[in-house]
């Protein structure tokens, strides 16, 4: 594991481009990749794979349940299947197929669940997942990841192609900040402490990491010392890092683009209780609501999970304890 921070939230990359490019380079390297989609090839960024590499790609049509079970089963012949759809259609819609044909059967499957949570934007509730961590975490032995940036996203894809297993890779398709420098590497099951402090520790998942960094900057301006963990692995949870770090802070805040039920707040909260951690804990997440249409900023605000809300939560605590 050796990563370096980019330290510039303005440098960005489109995840869908990373998806297509990473798949292409792995195919060129001779890896036995099978890229699967269910009528959203144009959206995933893997369009060029379907055009150019016919033997490494298959469009299942709008049949997500069939796609999951069939793709996972292709791994018995040595393929490393990668499937994609919008997050609800490869989580809510297909839980039993993931459970039986992928997990229980010990087949290989990489699920790229795109546009999770508020990233569904104008598509609304039917396309919004605030429960997919809960669904996937509860299936035995499945790895659930929420990359914060293009570099972690590509690393997860490559890790899976090397090692196999079942991966639920939950990430937007959009242009998002580079948290890490290109070429950084990570470790399975390890979260990254990307900022050290002593007052408030923010533990964030996925694109919320960028919001956490922004909140940290504003809190620092107010003289509050902030640490940030990029969780990356939702399951397995990096208990070691969490146990080690929470001891150094007075307040821990978890932030997630997910329902508070079954999300990272619950996972971290349970860990804190088990370790008898001596810190205050706040969890930011969606409070048991369905999705709705809107811009990302609007939805973050409605669901009270913006950097603004992180700052507010930290300040409320500090003011109470001064």
């Amino acid at each position: 594991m050796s990563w370096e921070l980019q330290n510039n939230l303005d440098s960005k990359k489109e995840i869908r481009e990373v998806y297509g490019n990473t798949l292409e380079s792995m195919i060129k390297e001779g890896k036995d990749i099978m890229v699967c989609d269910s009528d959203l090839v144009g959206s995933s960024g893997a369009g060029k794979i379907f055009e150019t590499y016919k033997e490494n790609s298959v469009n299942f049509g709008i049949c997500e349940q069939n796609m999951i079970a069939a793709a996972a089963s292709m791994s018995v012949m040595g393929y490393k299947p990668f499937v994609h759809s919008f997050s609800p259609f490869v989580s809510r819609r297909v839980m039993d197929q993931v459970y039986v044909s992928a997990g229980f059967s010990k087949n290989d499957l990489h699920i790229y669940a795109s546009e999770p949570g508020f990233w569904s934007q104008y598509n609304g509730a039917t396309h919004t997942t605030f429960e997919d961590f809960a669904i996937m975490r509860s299936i035995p032995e499945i790895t659930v990841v929420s990359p914060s940036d293009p570099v972690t996203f590509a690393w997860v894809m490559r890790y899976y192609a090397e090692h196999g297993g079942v991966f639920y890779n939950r990430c937007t398709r959009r242009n998002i900040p580079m948290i890490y420098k290109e070429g950084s590497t990570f470790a399975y099951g390890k979260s990254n402490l990307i900022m050290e402090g002593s007052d408030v520790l923010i533990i964030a998942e996925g694109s919320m990491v960028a919001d956490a960094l922004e909140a940290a900057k504003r809190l620092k301006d107010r003289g509050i010392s902030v640490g940030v963990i990029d969780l990356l692995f939702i399951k397995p949870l990096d208990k070691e890092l969490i146990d080690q770090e929470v001891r150094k802070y007075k307040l821990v805040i978890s932030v997630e683009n997910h329902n508070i039920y079954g999300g990272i707040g619950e996972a971290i909260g349970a860990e804190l209780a088990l370790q008898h951690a001596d810190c205050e804990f706040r969890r930011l997440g969606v409070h048991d609501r369905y999705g709705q249409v809107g811009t990302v900023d609007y939805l973050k605000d409605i669901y009270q999970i913006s950097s603004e809300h992180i700052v507010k939560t930290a300040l409320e605590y500090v003011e109470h304890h001064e």
Partner: protein
Amino acid sequence: MMRQVDNREYATAIRAVISEMFVARGDGHIGGSFSIADVMAVLFNKYLREDPKDWFVLSKGHAGPAYYACLYLQKKISKKDITTLNANGTILPSHPDRNLTPGVQCSTGSLGQGISQAVGIAYANKLKKTGALVYCIVGDGELNEGETYEALEFASNKKLNNLIICIDSNKKQVDGLIKDVSCDYDYQKLFEGLDLTVHMILGNDVEEIDDTLSEILAADDGNCHVLVLNTIKGKGISYFEDAENCHHVTFNETELKELTKYRMENEGAVKHVLGITE
């Protein structure tokens, strides 16, 4: 009897209102909204009754704008809402939400589920002998979903003679032609094989749709009927009809002009349907 206008004019008005929504929004699922404007016109202009309360289920929920246009023409939603498609805080989201938009009866957008909702509602109405009818529009791409066949089997098994299913056969899904992406359906055999009564008709021809529905209702033969509507994706504006695939479009300037032109040219139809005479 409901107040009626010419079905053709109603369909034009639907497309004009959708155009207004899309121009305000800048993007939208135009192909599948325009292809069903004719069947929507016939249903909303002539068939859907308030008493007994008939049901309409837009299983291909991404065509929500076509549904909203009808609700606007029925004065269930207001003029100012029309320009708020997908805006923050809107009551008109991409996909229909029965708890948000006045007049919307079922929440759809997850393909395959609307038709299951329709068979459930039809069965419940049949058991309760309400006399109400259920009309459901399903996409041809949507028929990829296995759930649609589970619903059709149920409709057949329970002899849902109060359910009329319309398949919008516009021959295209997101990634291309149905026959390339999924399979080349033989609808006649497929649905007959499920013991459903099939009608293969011109789906952008309001007269043919109207005649077929009248015949089905008059015959009252105890069967569940499926109308396979032979339609064109983007029907109504030749620019979109000719496009390779206009499933969801972020409109460029030319396209915005096409939509604006259509709306302006057909403002009269909208006013007429709304009953505003100049």
